[in-house]
């Protein structure tokens, strides 16, 4: 199989919020920048984001970045790096205002300022009471954001390669990154994008679970590519289960519904969150709400014939408010649950939603490896595929869109700085990593008597759902490791019947599965090893004692996991407890 080479200053994989934001930085600085994307940019998964983007603008009531920082550290269950968190919260107003200048049509207050609404875990005055911090554009926040940034990119001449699938990272013998190999879906042609700066912004991998709010596109390609190139994955045991996926379909009901006054009820109609989070109630942090829901269900207070969901009630809200502030929610209820939420409550269950872990980076967007966080030359990452780590063990709603803007920009800025320092020619291409891509494609094209992509993916999703869900058990996790490694063996021998080159979706999906399985292994193995509860990782055997509040064991486990694909080796690196300018937010028991 042959390939051609194309040279760029920078190649960005991904045209969602993070990729588009990074690209603006590079193209504006005059660097020749290619953006590769599997789908048209404004069909990236960021489009699905409805709730909004967090910034302590204080348009409706007093707010401060330091309060936002406190909430984010607390939300992360102290696993987030406090330097990166300070950086993000301080930058929030700047990037939101920039976005406004790119043309983002935010909802407005009567005085013309950006309308803000409350969101889970966002509080004023260091955790006192909910605060209005989320900026939204009706239910199309993500969509409007991508449009604004795509237009900006067109203006500054970013070169888009739409319907191209990046396959592998090109990393030379020194460990430096030199670009990616990619396939043009339209022709099946393989091209090496040779670049001095490579930025991954490939989004999440929520499809490793059977029940997920994520669209099918979220297959963790960046994580798979990084893992195959010897880059570890950080904190992959931490997956956010969103409290309100429609029972069955998994389709998300935005947290904005609870922000506007929606209430969770059990089978006896009780507003049970009052017992679990007396202060924040239904707007407590997502992991707290999800756990409360599963506890209600496990203790027999679930609803429906199988008592396997709870209810999200907005029947007390003015229908006009629902239609104005939460458009689209009614239709989701009608179509996927057969329920009119104006008259009846919606059946909901915690559903896999967001990956807190990812490719390890620092706040500058540089990919870093080892326990001392050494930057990998030429390699940057941002957005859901990256772990900066601002979300730690649990992300707050609306902090992801903020992460895309802040760290997309930061990764772009750092790449610009590095390119300016290094104006010389590209380092000669390392062909060994290109050969590995070709061998992988060749294996897939010639496999006989192999496994089915569909069946194997399903086996992976069921294994993850059963063995690494909202509550985790030692024996289930141990069995889960054995099971997922078995599934991985099947992934290594997938077979496709259709060998054609033009829009061969069977091949695309097989290649995506190669990536999903790396994420699944990383998740299961990291989860099995972490013997405490923290944020979204909750083990039933981690006891709530004075020394280990809520099962969190800071003495032994206040550290980031790094999973290596090679022999599934784990190492750990310290959490950055020192912020940039303010005092450390000291460890304490998390309660809402």
């Amino acid at each position, binding site marked *: 199989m042959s390939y051609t080479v194309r040279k760029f200053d920078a190649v960005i994989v991904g045209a969602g919020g993070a990729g588009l934001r990074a690209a603006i930085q590079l193209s504006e600085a005059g660097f020749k920048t290619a953006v590769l994307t599997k789908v048209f940019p404004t069909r990236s998964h960021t489009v699905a984001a409805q709730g909004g983007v967090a910034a302590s603008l204080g348009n409706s009531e007093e707010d401060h970045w330091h309060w936002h920082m406190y909430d984010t550290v607390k939300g992360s269950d102290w696993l987030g790096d406090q330097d990166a968190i300070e950086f993000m919260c301080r930058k929030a107003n700047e990037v939101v205002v920039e976005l406004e200048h790119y043309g983002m049509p935010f909802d407005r207050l009567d005085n013309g300022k950006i309308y803000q609404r409350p969101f889970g875990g966002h509080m004023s005055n260091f955790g006192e009471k909910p605060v209005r911090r989320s900026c939204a554009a009706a239910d199309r926040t993500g969509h409007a954001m991508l449009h604004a940034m795509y237009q900006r990119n067109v203006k500054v001449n970013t070169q888009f390669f739409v319907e191209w699938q990046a396959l592998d990272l090109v990393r030379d013998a020194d460990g430096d990154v030199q670009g990616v190999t990619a396939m043009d879906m339209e022709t099946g042609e393989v091209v090496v994008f040779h670049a001095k700066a490579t930025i991954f912004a490939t989004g999440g991998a929520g499809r490793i679970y059977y029940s997920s709010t994520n669209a099918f596109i979220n297959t963790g390609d960046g994580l798979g590519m990084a893992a195959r190139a010897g880059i570890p994955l950080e904190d992959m045991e931490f997956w956010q289960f969103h409290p309100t996926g429609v029972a069955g379909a998994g389709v998300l009901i935005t947290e904005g519904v609870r922000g506007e006054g929606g209430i969770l009820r059990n089978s006896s109609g009780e507003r049970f969150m009052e017992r679990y989070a007396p202060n924040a109630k239904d707007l407590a942090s997502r992991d707290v709400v999800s756990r409360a829901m599963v506890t209600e269900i496990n203790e027999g207070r679930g609803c429906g014939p199988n008592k396997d969901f709870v209810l999200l009630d907005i029947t007390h809200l003015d229908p006009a408010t629902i239609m104005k502030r939460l458009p689209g929610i009614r239709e989701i209820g009608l179509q996927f649950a057969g329920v009119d939420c104006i008259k009846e409550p919606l059946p909901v269950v915690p559903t896999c939603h967001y990956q807190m872990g990812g490719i390890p980076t620092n706040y500058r967007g540089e990919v870093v490896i080892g326990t001392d966080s050494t930057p990998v030359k030429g390699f940057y990452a941002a957005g859901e595929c990256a772990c900066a780590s601002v979300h730690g063990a649990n992300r707050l709603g609306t902090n992801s869109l903020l992460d895309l803007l802040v760290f997309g920009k930061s990764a772009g800025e750092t790449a610009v700085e590095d390119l300016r320092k290094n104006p010389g020619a590209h380092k000669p291409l390392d062909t060994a990593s290109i050969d590995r891509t070709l061998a992988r494609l060749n294996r897939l094209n010639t496999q006989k008597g192999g496994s089915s992509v569909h069946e194997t993916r399903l086996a992976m999703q069921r294994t993850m759902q059963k063995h690494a869900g909202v509550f985790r058990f030692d024996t289930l996790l141990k069995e889960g490791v054995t099971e997922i490694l078995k599934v991985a063996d099947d992934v290594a021998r997938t077979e496709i019947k259709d060998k054609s080159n*033009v829009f061969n979706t069977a091949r695309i999906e097989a290649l995506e599965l190669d990536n999903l399985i790396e994420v699944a292994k990383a998740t299961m193995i990291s989860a099995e090893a972490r013997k405490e509860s923290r944020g979204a990782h909750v083990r039933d055997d981690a006891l709530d004692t004075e020394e280990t509040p809520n099962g969190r064991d800071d003495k032994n486990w206040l550290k980031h996991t790094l999973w290596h694909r090679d022999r599934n080796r784990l190492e750990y690196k310290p959490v950055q407890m020192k912020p940039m300018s303010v005092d450390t937010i000291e460890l304490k028991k998390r309660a809402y």
Partner: protein
Amino acid sequence: MDDATRARMGRLKWHCRRALLELDIVFQQFWAQHENGLDAPTETALTRLLALEDHDIWDLINGRAEIDDPELTELAESLRIHCVATPLEPR
């Protein structure tokens, strides 16, 4: 299916990969019923529908929006039956 048809179907199938899970569910069910390809009018209508933005397609399917285009209206309405709740895993 000849190569040219297969290529066209492949492209359409890929264009059904959307940003919204709602649409993925609908189109997955749709293709499961059309494994052997589409008739010409459906192919044309689907190509046109897929050129719209995700939220607009979804609004046409769920009936929240209307479009002055009988072909797209008919296709969108026929897609509505595919809004199914995929069965949850037994717990």
